[in-house]
C-alpha cells in the first residue's frame, strides 16, 4: 500500500499503479484521450499532464499521469494553475488542425474532444494558418468510415487490433502531421469480427459506423440495457433508440420502434468493454419481417380463436412433444415448464446455427453456440438429438414448436403442430395453429450464459398489438390432465 496525495486528498494506492490509475480509483478526474484501462499506455496525447509538487528543495514538475508510477508521499495536483495552463495549451494543439465539423459529425454530443474543449479551453483557435487537409471519407472497411482530419492519432484503434482482437488490422502510415491511420492491405481488418469496437474507442468523430452514418443525433436517442442473443456469451449491450419523451416522436412513428444502433455495455463478468460485430447488427435480427397474425391452418384468425383451438388440440393430445426455444428467457422457460413440463416430451432445439463464414469460437468473446439461453433450457430438458425422429415419443400426436430453427419435415407426419414464433416463416402456414409472439426487445427478462452468469435485459419497445408474450400464452395453454376427459 502506498500513500499519496491528490489535490490534498489522502489516497491509498496499490504498488505498481500509475497516478492515472490511482486517481481514477479514488474518484479524481484527469482528462485523457489516448489512455484506456484495457489497452497499453502510449502516452502520446499529453492531455493528462499533472503537477508533482516539489518538496521545498526542488520545484514541482509536470508530466503525464498515465505513465507516472506512484511513489510514497507523492503530492499530485490535477488542477493547479500550471496544470490548467498546460492542459489548455495541449488542447489548442490537439484542435489546431481538427476540422470544426461538429455540425455534421455523428460524434457530436458524445465527443470527448468537444467536452474537453468547452471544459478546459473554450476559446477559438489562435492560429492564422489554414488547417492541414487529409482524407475525409476513407473506407477503412465496409462498416467503418474514417475521417483523417478529425483523427487525433491517439492510436487506440491501432492498439485494439494489436492487443485485443489481435487481427493486426490497423496501423499508422507515414509520420509527423502526415500520419494516417490505415487498414492493413490484406483485408485483415475487414475480416476482424471485433472491428467496430474502434468506433466506441475513438475519442473523436474520426471512426464512424457506416450503418449509423448521419441517421440520428445521439441526443435524441437513449440506450436501453439488453443482452446480445448472438451466442451463448450473452454480452451486455445497450440498444439505442429514440427517446420515448422526444417531442418529435410523432413524426414518422414507425421509427420509434427502430433500433438505431447497438453498443457494448461494460460488464467485467461477461464481455468487459467489448462486443463483436454480430451484436452491432441486432437490428438486422430483430427487424426481420414479423409474424403478426394468428393462423389456423394458414388462415388468419383472431388471437383468441387460435388460442382456443390450440387449447383443444393440447387437451386432446395423448403423446405430446415439444421443441423448446434456445432463445426463450428464464421467465418464459419457467412458465413453459409449469404448463408443459410434466406432460410433454420436451427437447431443446438449436434456433440459430452459425452462418457460413461466421467465426465459431475464439479466446476473446465468441462462443460456438449461437443462441443466448440454451444453458437454462437444457437445465430442464435434453437437447434435440441429431436423429430428430428418435426424439419424439411413439405415437406422438402433437408437437408444440416454440421459436425458430425447426425442421418441419422431420416432425412425425400425423402429429398436430402448434407453432409459436415471432418472425415470419413459410412453415407458419402449414401449422395447425400458429401464434405470433413478442421478441426480446419488447419485454424484460433474464438469460443464463455459458458460464452460468444470469443477466437481465429490459424492454425497449411496445410489442405489436396483435402479438402475445409467450409467457402469457403458456399460462393460457396450460391444460390440466383431468380436463382431457371433457
Amino acid at each position, binding site marked *: 500500500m502506498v500513500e499519496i496525495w491528490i489535490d490534498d486528498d489522502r489516497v491509498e494506492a496499490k504498488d505498481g499503479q500509475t497516478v492515472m490509475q490511482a486517481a481514477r480509483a479514488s474518484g479524481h478526474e484527469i482528462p485523457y484521450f489516448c489512455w484506456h484501462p484495457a489497452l497499453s*499506455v*502510449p*502516452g*502520446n*496525447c*499529453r*492531455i493528462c*499532464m499533472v503537477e508533482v509538487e516539489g518538496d521545498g528543495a526542488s520545484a514541482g*514538475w*509536470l508530466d*503525464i499521469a498515465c*505513465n507516472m*508510477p506512484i511513489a510514497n508521499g507523492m503530492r499530485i495536483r490535477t488542477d493547479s494553475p500550471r496544470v490548467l495552463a*498546460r492542459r489548455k*495549451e*495541449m488542447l*489548442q*494543439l*490537439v484542435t*489546431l*488542425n481538427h476540422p470544426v465539423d461538429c455540425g455534421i459529425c455523428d460524434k457530436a454530443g458524445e465527443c470527448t474532444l468537444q467536452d474537453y474543449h468547452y471544459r478546459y479551453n473554450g476559446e477559438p483557435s*489562435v*492560429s*492564422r*494558418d489554414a488547417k*492541414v487537409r487529409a482524407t475525409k471519407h476513407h473506407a477503412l472497411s465496409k462498416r467503418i468510415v474514417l475521417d483523417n482530419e478529425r483523427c*487525433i*492519432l491517439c*492510436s487506440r484503434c491501432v492498439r485494439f487490433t494489436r492487443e485485443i482482437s489481435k487481427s493486426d488490422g490497423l496501423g*499508422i502510415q*507515414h*509520420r*509527423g*502531421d*502526415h*500520419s494516417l491511420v490505415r487498414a492493413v492491405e490484406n483485408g485483415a481488418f475487414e475480416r476482424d469480427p471485433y472491428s467496430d469496437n474502434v468506433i466506441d474507442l475513438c475519442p473523436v468523430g474520426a471512426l464512424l459506423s457506416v450503418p449509423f452514418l448521419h441517421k440520428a443525433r445521439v441526443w435524441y436517442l437513449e440506450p436501453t440495457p439488453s443482452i446480445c442473443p448472438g451466442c451463448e456469451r450473452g454480452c451486455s449491450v445497450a440498444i439505442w433508440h429514440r427517446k420515448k419523451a422526444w417531442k418529435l416522436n410523432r413524426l414518422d412513428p414507425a421509427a420509434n420502434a427502430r433500433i438505431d444502433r447497438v453498443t457494448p455495455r461494460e460488464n467485467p463478468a461477461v464481455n468487459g468493454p467489448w462486443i463483436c460485430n454480430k451484436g452491432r447488427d441486432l437490428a438486422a435480427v430483430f427487424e426481420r419481417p414479423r409474424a403478426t397474425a394468428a393462423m389456423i391452418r394458414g388462415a388468419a384468425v383472431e388471437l383468441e380463436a387460435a388460442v382456443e383451438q390450440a387449447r383443444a388440440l393440447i387437451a386432446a393430445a395423448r403423446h405430446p412433444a415439444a421443441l423448446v426455444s434456445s432463445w426463450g428467457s428464464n421467465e418464459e422457460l419457467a412458465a413453459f415448464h409449469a404448463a408443459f413440463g410434466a406432460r410433454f416430451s420436451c427437447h431443446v432445439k438449436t434456433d440459430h446455427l452459425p452462418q457460413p463464414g461466421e467465426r465459431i469460437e475464439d479466446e476473446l468473446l465468441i462462443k460456438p453456440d449461437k443462441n443466448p439461453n440454451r444453458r437454462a433450457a437444457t437445465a430442464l430438458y435434453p437437447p434435440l438429438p441429431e436423429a430428430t425422429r428418435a426424439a419424439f415419443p411413439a405415437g406422438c400426436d402433437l408437437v408444440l414448436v416454440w421459436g425458430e430453427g425447426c425442421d418441419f419435415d422431420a416432425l412425425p407426419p400425423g402429429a398436430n403442430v402448434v407453432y409459436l414464433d415471432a418472425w415470419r416463416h413459410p412453415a407458419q402456414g402449414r401449422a395447425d395453429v400458429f401464434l405470433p409472439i413478442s421478441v426480446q426487445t419488447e419485454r424484460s427478462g433474464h438469460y443464463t450464459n455459458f458460464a452460468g452468469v444470469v443477466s437481465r435485459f429490459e424492454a425497449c419497445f411496445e410489442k405489436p398489438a396483435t402479438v402475445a408474450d409467450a409467457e402469457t400464452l403458456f399460462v393460457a395453454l396450460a391444460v390440466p390432465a383431468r380436463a382431457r376427459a371433457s
Partner: protein
Amino acid sequence: MTGTKLLMNFEVTPTSHCLADYRARGGYATLDKVLREMRPEEVTKEVATAGILGHGGAAFPAGRKWGVIRLNDGLPHYLCANADEGEPGTFKDRWILEHAPHLLVESMAIAAYALQVRHAFVYIRGEFDLPWRRIAEAVEEAYAAGWLGEGIAGSAFALDLVVYRGAGSYVCGEASGLLTSLEGRKGYPRNRPPRLTVRGLYQMPTVINNVETLANVTGIVRDGAAAFRKVGTAKSPGTQLISISGHVQRAGVYEVEYGYPFAKFIREDCGGVLGGLGLKCVVPGGISTKVLTAAEIEPLLLDHASVAAAGSSLGSGGMVVVAEGTCMVRFLQVLVRFYHHESCGQCTPCREGMGWLHRIVDRIVAGEGELEDIDRLVAISKANDGTTICGMGDAAGYATVGIIAKYRDEFKYWIRNGRSLHGGRLEAVDHEWLREAALHG
C-alpha cells in the same frame, strides 16, 4: 593547435583504418589486458572516475549510465553505439567510423565486457555509405582475427557485434527511437520511465552511447582515469570532436581539448569566416542548440560550463559558422522545415507544433506575416518545452527561441516590409551559385 589529441592522434592514410595499421598503433592490446587483468566492475569504475560526458548531445556522464546496469541479474544486456548522426551540422562520428573503426570495435568490446553484454550493435544511419563499409569491414576483420566472436583473446568472453543500418529518420538518433527501429519497427521514441538501462532493447537492460563517447573508452582504460582527467577541464575532462561547417574557411572535423578558446578556434584553427567577412553568429553544437552572437562567443571557452553560462550548449559538437549578412529568417525556415519533416508524429505538441512553426515561417517569408506571429513562434516553442515524448520538440523550441531572441528585428523587418533585411541570403559570398540560380530564373 587545439590541445591534446586522444582520438585524432595518428596520420590518416589509405590503410590507417585497417586492422594491421591499428594493431601497429597498439590496437587491441587494451582489450587483451582488460580480459586478462580486470573485472567488469573495475572497467566501469575507471570510466566513471574518468568522468567522460556523453558526446551525443546530452552530456550525460557515461560511467553513471553504465552503473545502472546490474551485473549478474540473469538478464541479457545490450550495448549499442549510436552512429545515427543526424543532427544537422554534425559529421564527427563519421570521421571515427571512416578512419578509426577498429578503435570503436575495441572500445565496444571493452564496454561489453564491463556491462556483461553478449550482443552489441552499431546503429548507423542508412544514408552513410563509406562509413558503413569501413565499420562493416572492420567488424569482419575483427572476427577473422578473433577480436570478436567466441573466446576472445583466449578468454571466456564472447561478443557478437552487428552493424545495423537505419533507413532515413532523424528520430532514430534519439536513444529510444533507435531501439524501436532496431526492433524492426518505425523509430517511435518511448516515454520514460522506464529508463532504457532498465528496459531497453526488447525490454532488456541496454546502454546506448554515442560513437565518440565509446571511442574514448579504450584510451581511458589503457592510460587510466587520472590521465584522462589531466586533459580538458575539471568539469569537462577529455576532448571533443567538433565538426565545423557553414561560412568557415576550413570546414572539417577537429579534435579540441575542452577549455580551448572558442573564438580562437574559429579564427585561427579553422581559418575564420569565409571570404574574410565578419562573424554574425555561431550555432555551437548542432542546430538544436541556441545560437550565440559573435560578441557572445568572444569570452567563451569550448567546454560545457562556459557555453552553458552563455545560455547555450556544446551539444553534439556540430558547429555552424554564420557570416554577417545572412538572413536569420531564412535560417530559421530551413530549421523548422527540417523539424517538421522529421517529427515522428506520436505526440500532440511536436506533431502539430512543428508543422505550425513551419507554416508560420513560410508565411513570413512569403510576405504574409503579422507581428503577433513572432510571439506565436515563441509560444509554440514553450508548448513543446518539457511536454513531449522525446527531446525533439524541446530542441526545435530552443532553436526557434534562440534565433528569435537574438534576431527578432529581422523578423519584424520582413513582416513590416514584405522582404528580408539581408536579401534573403543564406550564402555568405556572392556565391557562384547565386549567379547560377539567377541565370536559370
